[in-house]
């Protein structure tokens, strides 16, 4: 079978349709110029600053929408995490924003930090801060389902996190299975060795309140769905 394939490939090289070298040069040049044109278009070259554009009517599609698929678009940040060498003083590094310890792993401490937190310019390189975005960009963990119902691996993370939240006294089982509960799985921007499982326990909007959100976070080892640590987050 392999020989037969090689023969076919060999015959292919002798094809009368093989392009001449001159044609090849022209194709390379045309390809390059086309790529340049595409790049230019993507950067907005050749367009006026304020284009007035009128597209002929297509009535059937006038209001049809082309929504973002799950996991695409700019996810924005739901919060942040900070990783620093275990035992190091954050205050000595000039870190003034509030943090809470999430987990200890491999000689480092992982903290939850507020959305929008920023490190001082002089921070040591061993201290890392990153935004937490939802959903996970990892295909195996990505879901937009508030109950994580469409992803078996995420369901395992959720079950382990539920146990850890209740064992730590952060929430009761009833609170975690209430109506206004929203589960999320996100990547840890400071490490690939854990995933973050967050749950928003919400109160509904009333005439006097826009509603509230209390967020709990668990760091989970995805290789065995074991929980590395939990905390409440100011996200």
């Amino acid at each position: 079978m392999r020989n037969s394939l090689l023969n076919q490939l060999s015959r292919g090289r002798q094809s009368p349709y093989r392009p001449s070298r001159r044609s090849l040069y022209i194709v390379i040049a045309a390809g390059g110029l086309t790529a340049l044109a595409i790049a230019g278009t993507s950067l907005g070259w050749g367009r006026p600053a304020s284009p007035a554009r009128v597209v002929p009517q297509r009535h059937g599609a006038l209001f049809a929408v082309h929504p973002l698929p799950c996991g695409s678009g700019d996810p924005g940040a739901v919060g942040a995490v900070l990783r620093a060498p275990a035992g190091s003083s954050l205050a000595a590094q000039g870190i003034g924003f509030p943090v809470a310890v999430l987990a200890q792993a491999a000689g480092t401490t992982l903290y939850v930090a507020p959305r929008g937190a920023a490190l001082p310019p002089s921070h040591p390189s061993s201290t890392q801060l990153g935004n937490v975005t939802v959903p996970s960009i990892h295909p195996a963990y990505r879901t937009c389902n508030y109950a994580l119902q469409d992803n078996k691996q995420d369901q395992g993370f959720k079950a382990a996190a539920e146990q850890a939240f209740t064992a730590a006294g952060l929430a009761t089982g009833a609170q975690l299975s209430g109506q206004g509960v929203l589960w999320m799985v996100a990547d840890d921007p400071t490490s690939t060795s854990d995933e973050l499982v967050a749950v928003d326990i919400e109160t509904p909007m009333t005439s006097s309140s826009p509603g509230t959100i209390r967020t709990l976070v668990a760091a989970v080892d995805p290789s065995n769905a074991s929980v590395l640590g939990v905390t409440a987050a100011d996200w």
Partner: protein
Amino acid sequence: MKRFLRAPRCQLMLTRAGAISSLAALLLILQSAPLQAVAATCSTDGNHWYAQARSGCCDVGTLQNTAVPTKWSVDHSANSTTDEGTWIIDNNNGNVAIESGYYSGYFPYDGSWTNGLHPYYTINNGGSGQHSGTYLTAGSQYGIDAVSGGRADIGSTRFNLNYSVPNGFNFGMGEVVSSTRTWMGGGSGESLQAYWSPNGSSWYLWGFNNDCNNSPYWIHQSSGSNWSNGGY
């Protein structure tokens, strides 16, 4: 010209031009990649310009509290439309959806025209729709919801619908159709606070929000549940 193109010198120049332009294009694409990561472009058929915010699924309702714009413009000669929509849409079938909101300009389902802001709804991803003759007040606060089962509320205007959306995901957007001479909100735009509902009566803040836009329309996210959009 033809003879020149056949000349070895020309072929060499073309090859060099191709290699240099390929390299330049690659560098430009690589350089622009981080920009695309922070300002995703919405999918479009070229007939729509969007600012879209999407959260998660699978529930039964979406609500947005918003102050309607004080500035907008609609191009009558192009029969164009601008609208702000709240959607509950099937996560597995984008053609099953309820859209609720307000618009100005051309209303494609009856061919009418308004320079004001009217409440409207659509079903089947814009397959059919109706509007009310009520005029919304510029700058005033309105709650706009779309609920599977179903109903569409725009302030005190209610459309009752016998229409269900399974696997509903929560979605909101500002939209301009057919002409960029039509615009919404301008530079200050409109702010929206978005909710999801497991039952159509209790409303909870979105926990996260994925955005995209088509220039010249913009979107800014200030939290998982708060965003603003607009554009000229």
